[in-house]
């Protein structure tokens, strides 16, 4: 009598292909995955709790520490939510710069995804190339905000400062050179036999199951669901730009790879349109109750100094109410649900984490496949543990 016997294998929390501190307890029948139990929370910093004790301006730097591969996209969702709560209109130039930087962030995040995904499967060259290109985006980040990762560049009502001299030139260089780099990656991977064997038919999840599991973003579009918040519920002026929303057909890892590569090309197109659209003007709303005063006033007049002190220490009171703002992050739908009791601090700030919900589908995607394919499934989900654990 043959008897089924399973073996339990622990993977992580320190494992190179878990992209952070993720621990998976896997039950194996031979080499076939029978059950996966993820254990998360190793990076839990209580960001939602912390934000309840900070003013709206002070809670902003917490947000770019969640998805540290796409900090500006996180900031964008938060400032949009607060602006919605306040009913504030942002100047046109600030909106356009936000779109450019958010799309640069998408490139940055997708480059890390491709690099690590390829490295997990064994393609080291792509990893090195992607990090080389990511560095160019990081340089723009550093010039804009002084930081390579924790940008904190946006403000409620606009931007912390206008772009530096030469920003347009740097962005134009990305527009000109990046499509060629994407060709290189595709040349290395799309028809690569090893790549195809590892990704085609791997991690299949049907459109219906994907929606049921709450998967959003490129992972959902890879399953053939034509839905993108930037197009369907536009924010920050995305309705002005034309771009394609790629969808997959076979719902597997290879289709999700194709979707993300097209998304990178489309991001470059959006950046190009937005850069042409960039007109001189103010980058911060004229709202002394909410926004910080210009630095020259702070340094040269007592009124400006008092104003700055008041905004920095006390902040502003938001009207009583609750809002939800979802943005299309590189990982999926990132949502901020803010509840205000009329004071100067959020009564409750809830972050709807895309990676957290996407990860919950891992068992559905990997069950029945070989254990070696699990790293490809983790890679294709494109998770960031900083945002899963918050």
């Amino acid at each position: 009598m043959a008897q089924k016997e399973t073996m339990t294998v622990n993977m992580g929390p320190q494992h190179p292909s878990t992209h952070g501190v993720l621990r998976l307890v896997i039950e194996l029948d031979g080499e076939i995955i029978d059950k996966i139990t993820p254990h998360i929370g190793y990076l839990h910093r209580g960001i939602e709790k912390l934000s309840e004790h900070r003013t709206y301006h002070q809670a902003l730097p917490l947000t770019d520490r969640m998805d540290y591969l796409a900090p500006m996209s996180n900031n964008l969702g938060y400032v949009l939510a607060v602006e919605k709560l306040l009913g504030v209109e942002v100047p046109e130039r600030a909106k356009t710069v936000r779109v450019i930087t958010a799309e640069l962030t998408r490139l940055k995040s997708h480059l890390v995804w491709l690099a690590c995904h390829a490295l997990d499967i064994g393609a080291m060259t792509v990893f090195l190339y992607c990090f080389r290109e990511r560095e160019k985006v990081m340089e723009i980040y550093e010039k804009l905000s002084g930081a390579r990762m924790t940008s904190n560049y946006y403000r409620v009502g606009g931007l912390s400062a206008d772009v530096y001299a030469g920003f347009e030139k740097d962005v134009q260089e990305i527009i000109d050179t990046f499509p060629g780099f994407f060709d290189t990656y595709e040349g290395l991977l799309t028809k690569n036999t090893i790549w195809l064997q590892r990704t085609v038919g791997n991690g299949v999840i049907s459109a219906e199951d994907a929606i049921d599991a709450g998967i959003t973003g490129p992972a959902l579009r890879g399953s053939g669901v034509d839905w993108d918040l930037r197009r369907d519920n536009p924010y920050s002026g995305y309705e002005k730009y034309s771009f394609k929303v790629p969808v997959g057909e076979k719902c597997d890892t290879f289709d999700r790879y194709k979707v993300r590569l097209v998304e990178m090309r489309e991001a470059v197109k959006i950046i190009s349109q937005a850069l042409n659209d960039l007109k001189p003007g103010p980058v911060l709303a004229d709202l002394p109750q909410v926004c910080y005063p210009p630095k020259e006033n702070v340094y040269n007049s007592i009124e400006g100094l008092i104003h700055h002190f008041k905004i920095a220490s006390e902040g502003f009171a938001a009207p009583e109410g609750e809002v939800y703002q979802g943005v299309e992050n590189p990982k999926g739908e990132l949502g901020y649900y803010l509840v205000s009791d009329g004071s100067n601090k959020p009564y409750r700030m809830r972050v709807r984490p895309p990676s957290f919900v996407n990860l919950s589908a891992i068992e559905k995607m990997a069950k029945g496949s070989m254990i070696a394919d699990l790293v490809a499934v983790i890679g294709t989900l494109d998770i960031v543990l900083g945002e899963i654990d918050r």
Partner: protein
Amino acid sequence: MVDMAENNRAVIKLRERFAADIVEVKEFRGEVTVTVTKNNIVEICNYLKTALGYNLLTDVTAVDYLGKSPRFQVVYNMYSIPSKDRLRVKAQVEEADATIDSVSGVWSSANWLERETYDLFGITFAGHPDLRRILMTDDWVGHPLRKDYPLQGPDREPYKGRLS
């Protein structure tokens, strides 16, 4: 602005079928929030998903209104991919009976989201297939997002600013 909320297609349908459960309908910044009692939450969610097309459960969370009655509101943010609109349903949960039926049978995405709400708020989801803590460790005492849980943790002095 009440008219706009009342004209919402989901609100009209919910008023027809679940009139006894609806506590309040509110509209703020173009977003519609329906507050309901917790008794028929699974039926309401099932109806919203199957009949009204809210096929994507974006988020489940809770808000702790310490000192008010009912103390907790469990918040369901849902989205309809076919008609591209959002709806927020809130269910009232009393502190004395901090339990509500799980909607993980309606949308499987509720599984982890309800676990997180249980972990951080201590609200029990009846009928949940796997209700364990998810972000905190299994042996953690207390529920950190409750308003009466101190920011610095239960066993430390509150931060009083820099000493120098």
